[in-house]
């Protein structure tokens, strides 16, 4: 049986207006959802573009092996490259890194250098700068080499002089000003020397048994994504003992930021969707509320529930599709605003290409979500009894859903399930999704509890002023939507507040906490007997900042094993086992570190270790396990006393493993040296370097400021991007809440008409309405602020594993702003009703 009820049947004038609110909420919701998604993708592309300059490639393959014949690439990496990477429009550039002694002919001066032998096309991404402005390929093709300035001062050489590496005399053609991928190799043992790959055989250094790091830099085909390519190669690379590095992994602070940024944008989209859900449900509820008489008439005329459903869903889709389409289109246009706002992140002329696919997906999602939001009110319409049409008095008031608030529960449950599925799909982790859903359910229950408690408390009040009394009675009246509205507004405002608090926390974490100045140099290989001299020189030149000089005793060691450390070479953590760790020992927890499990040293004599939490996770280590390192030929064991979180955004010296002071105390023959960072005023840097070279010849200085500042600049740009996205989401969230209030206050029209009919003046009606919305705004803002902090604390402590801080000013601003917005929206919206002629108002409220 086909249904041919006219499609405009439900569009009564009041319902039509609420339909507009619904459409506005959906438009905002889809705009923001698509906008955040598209902006996030666009930003990620820009970030990858920036980050790959830190890697000098799109993808880097690295294997530290003992290799045979000198010359070309050792077989392992070249074979792997031929089998798995070559072709497909990709460009490969091999290079080698090894340590060698550099010496000056006819002199006893020697020093260890970190040699990097590169092909003519190095770097594949980013720029390498030489102090004399020459180009690297030109220098290398003429047989010259490039060195760090430290090397010159250490060996007493100048540009143009010759030094020897192995059997090869090499002419120093220039000094290095900026090496793009220096960040991947900060903890080096000596100054950098860059030479041409084809010159390596002349040195005669790569004999059988030599230790060399082979590197294969890859420039991917246009459109290829490094993370995706890396994923396809990972299993084979792990088996072959090759480490894959994507741009995001090139530096811990960048890697962590990317993760947090993705988490933040994802949460922004989800929270917006939930606020949108609150607004759409409120608007849909009001729409159906205004259509209830029509639905009752249809029922009494013999319409089956299926026909009612078809009619309602048809009307809903008719309202929804233009809004969803417009939202999708405006959403994909939003990221076009980013390049002018974040010029540092986007290169000049960066072209944003809107994704129609994303707009389409956002539109479909918006339509599905609006259907989800309508399920509750639709369920309510099933239980709507037309019997009241036979009552000639006040039948409109009587046409209430059976079990008030019941649909809210159904909707809440559906939202929780849908959110869990959404988060699961987004994060790819089912556990995370269900945790999110559980958190959301708790949140709904807390909101419900708080709304009930506040309304209960309100019921005990009996103010003298009539308008406050009337306002309280209205809020408490059975059948009025205010209880549900209070809960919805409280939850909605809570989610908006959470966005605000989260963005503030992210900003604090990324921008405010980084040091005022990046370390100018890292100094490596300071011997125990040089410590005093080093400190004397450093204090002379260091900037007057706390922690301007940081000094740690270090040894190098390889992980031999431990409880929970598997020996399976196929496991992805195998590179963690193969790598060389820089280890330290300290009596106190270093700044920027936080204990997550266990305790700091149990006693001064304890043989204990503190392990960075992500490393512990990857290796399956827990508190109480034992780890063993090969340190200068000695197996050294320690019990894991605690797991530690490291604030990598500090961009300072941090360690994966820290020993207690007693470790290695008794081991003979193990010598410690020191690693230090010094922040110096820019104009003092050259003098500091010279003084160090003069008095501590063997100490290697790595100029870190420019590299770390570029990382910091990148993080700051992204923090600004997060602020932009978060700010946009907050504004849209507030607009959505405004829609919720506007939709609901239309239900007050009948009451306003009655007040006017019994002789209330416009001012008196305004006072009553103002009192209602003042109470509603204050209560909802109170719930919102509490919910906001609860969500923020859960996300920061639970997901970001950071410390949650209470920001009183932001809390106060959110409370005042939220309550004022709700109050103003309600009052302004009711202005028309309080000034309209009474009969016209009554006629409109009677329209069904």
């Amino acid at each position, binding site marked *: 049986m086909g249904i041919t009820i006219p499609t405009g049947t439900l*569009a009564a004038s009041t319902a039509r207006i609420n339909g507009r609110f619904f459409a506005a909420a959906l438009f905002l919701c889809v705009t923001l959802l698509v906008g955040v998604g598209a902006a996030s993708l666009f930003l990620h592309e820009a970030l990858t573009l920036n980050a790959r300059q830190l890697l000098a490639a799109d993808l880097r393959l690295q294997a530290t092996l003992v290799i045979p014949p000198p010359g070309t690439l050792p077989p392992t990496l070249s074979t792997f490259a031929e089998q798995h990477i070559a072709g497909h429009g990709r460009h490969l550039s091999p290079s080698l890194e090894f340590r060698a002694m550099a010496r000056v002919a006819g002199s006893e001066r020697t020093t260890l250098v970190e040699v990097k032998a590169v092909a003519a096309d190095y770097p594949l991404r980013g720029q390498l700068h030489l102090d004399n402005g020459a180009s690297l390929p030109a220098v290398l093709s003429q047989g010259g080499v490039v060195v760090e300035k430290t090397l010159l001062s250490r060996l007493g050489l100048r540009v143009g002089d010759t030094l020897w590496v192995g059997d090869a005399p090499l002419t120093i053609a220039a000094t290095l000003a900026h090496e793009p991928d220096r960040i991947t190799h900060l903890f080096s043992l000596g100054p950098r020397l860059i030479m041409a790959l084809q010159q390596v055989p002349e040195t005669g250094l790569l004999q059988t048994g030599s230790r060399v790091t082979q590197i294969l830099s890859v420039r991917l085909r246009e459109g290829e994504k490094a993370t995706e390519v890396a994923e396809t190669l990972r299993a084979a690379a792990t088996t072959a003992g090759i480490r894959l590095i994507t741009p995001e992994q090139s530096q811990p602070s960048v890697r962590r930021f990317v993760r947090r940024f993705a988490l933040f944008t994802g949460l922004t989209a989800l929270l917006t969707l939930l606020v949108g859900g609150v607004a759409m449900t409120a608007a849909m509820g009001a729409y159906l509320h205004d259509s209830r008489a029509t639905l009752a008439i249809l029922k009494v005329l013999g319409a089956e529930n299926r026909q009612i459903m078809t009619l309602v869903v048809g009307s809903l889709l008719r309202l929804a599709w233009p809004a969803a389409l417009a939202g999708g289109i405006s959403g994909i246009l939003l990221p076009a605003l980013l390049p002018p706002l974040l010029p540092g992140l986007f290169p000049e002329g960066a072209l944003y290409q809107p994704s129609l696919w994303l707009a389409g997906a956002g539109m479909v999602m918006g339509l599905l979500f609006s259907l989800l939001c309508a399920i509750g009110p639709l369920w309510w319409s099933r239980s709507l009894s037309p*019997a009241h049409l036979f009552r000639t008095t006040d039948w409109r008031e009587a046409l209430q859903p059976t079990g008030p608030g019941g649909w809210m529960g159904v909707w809440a449950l559906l939202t929780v399930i849908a959110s869990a599925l959404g988060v699961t799909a987004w994060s790819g982790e089912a556990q995370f999704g269900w945790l999110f859903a559980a958190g959301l359910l708790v949140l709904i229950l807390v909101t419900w509890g708080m709304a009930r408690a506040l309304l209960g408390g309100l019921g005990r009040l009996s103010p003298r002023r009539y308008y406050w009394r009337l306002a309280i009675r209205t809020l408490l009246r059975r059948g009025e939507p205010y209880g549900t509205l209070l809960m919805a507004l409280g939850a909605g405002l809570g989610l908006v507040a959470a966005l605000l608090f989260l963005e503030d926390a992210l900003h604090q974490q990324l921008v405010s906490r980084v040091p005022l100045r990046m370390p100018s140099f890292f100094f490596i290989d300071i011997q125990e007997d040089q410590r005093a001299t080093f400190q004397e020189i450093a204090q002379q030149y260091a900037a007057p900042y706390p922690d301007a000089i940081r000094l740690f005793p270090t040894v190098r060691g390889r992980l031999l094993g431990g409880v929970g450390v598997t020996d399976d070479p196929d496991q992805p953590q195998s590179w963690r086992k193969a790598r060389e760790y820089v280890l330290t020992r300290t009596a106190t927890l270093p700044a920027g570190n936080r204990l997550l499990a266990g305790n700091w040293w149990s006693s001064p004599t304890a043989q204990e270790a503190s392990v960075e939490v992500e490393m512990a996770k990857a290796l399956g280590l827990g508190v109480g396990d034992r780890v063993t390192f090969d340190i200068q030929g000695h197996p050294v064991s320690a019990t894991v006393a605690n797991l530690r979180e490291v604030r990598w955004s500090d961009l300072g010296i941090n360690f994966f493993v820290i020993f207690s002071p007693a470790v290695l105390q008794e081991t003979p023959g193990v010598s410690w040296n020191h690693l230090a960072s010094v922040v110096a005023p820019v104009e003092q840097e050259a003098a500091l370097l010279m003084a160090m070279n003069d008095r501590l010849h063997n100490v290697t200085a790595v100029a870190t400021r420019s590299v770390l500042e570029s990382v910091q600049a990148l993080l700051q740009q992204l923090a600004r991007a997060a602020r932009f996205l978060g700010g946009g989401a907050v504004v849209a969230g507030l607009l959505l809440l405004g829609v919720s209030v506007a939709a609901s206050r239309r239900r007050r029209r009948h009451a306003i008409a009655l007040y006017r009919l019994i002789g209330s003046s416009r001012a008196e009606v305004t006072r009553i309405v103002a009192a209602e919305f003042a109470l509603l705004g204050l209560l909802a803002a109170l719930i919102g602020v509490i919910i906001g902090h609860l969500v923020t604390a859960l996300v920061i402590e639970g997901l970001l594993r950071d410390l949650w801080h209470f920001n009183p000013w932001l809390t106060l601003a959110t409370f005042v702003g939220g309550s004022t917005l709700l109050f103003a929206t309600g009052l302004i919206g009711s202005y028309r009703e309080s000034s309209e002629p009474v009969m016209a108002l009554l006629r409109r409220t009677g329209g069904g």
Partner: protein
Amino acid sequence: MGLLGPSGSGKSSLLALLAGVEHPTQGHVQVNGVRLDGLSADALALFRRQHLGIVFQDFHLVPTLTAWENVALPLDLAGQPESRPRALEMLARMGLAPRSNHRPGELSGGEQQRVAIARAFISRPALILADEPTGNLDQDTSRQVIDLLFSCAAQWGSTLFLVTHDPQLAQRADRCLRLVDGQLTDLPAPMEQA
């Protein structure tokens, strides 16, 4: 059939029970040979669509639809063809042909009630429930509406169940009942009273 009774005596409840929109707490309801208690909501809707027409005191027209669309609604719900010409024909029978494209808000009370009567009779139901159909109308219009109701019921052979406060109006029915304190009693037929 006419039903008289004071306010609060249960007249509307009885109509709601007959329409199958309320369920009896005791006993059962049988209309036109069909027991209503125990039927599902959709089965009751189908029953109303096939057997009942209802005229309310407040008219209860869908405000967004035109007069002819309101009248055609029961046919549309039943998926019957030719709903528009049949609705227009019915409106012409009510003397409302020139007003067929007007919405309820543009019609007078009497006109709205005539549209409601047309909607009630469009499916030729066996039973018409009329709940104080003249309660909101003036005397002249009331008379016209009642004449129309009786003539339509006679023309299409429908039983008219008329709830009213007006004893004179009730006496136009073949059988007259009084409902007081939930007790239904037969009133003497007009001839007997005479």
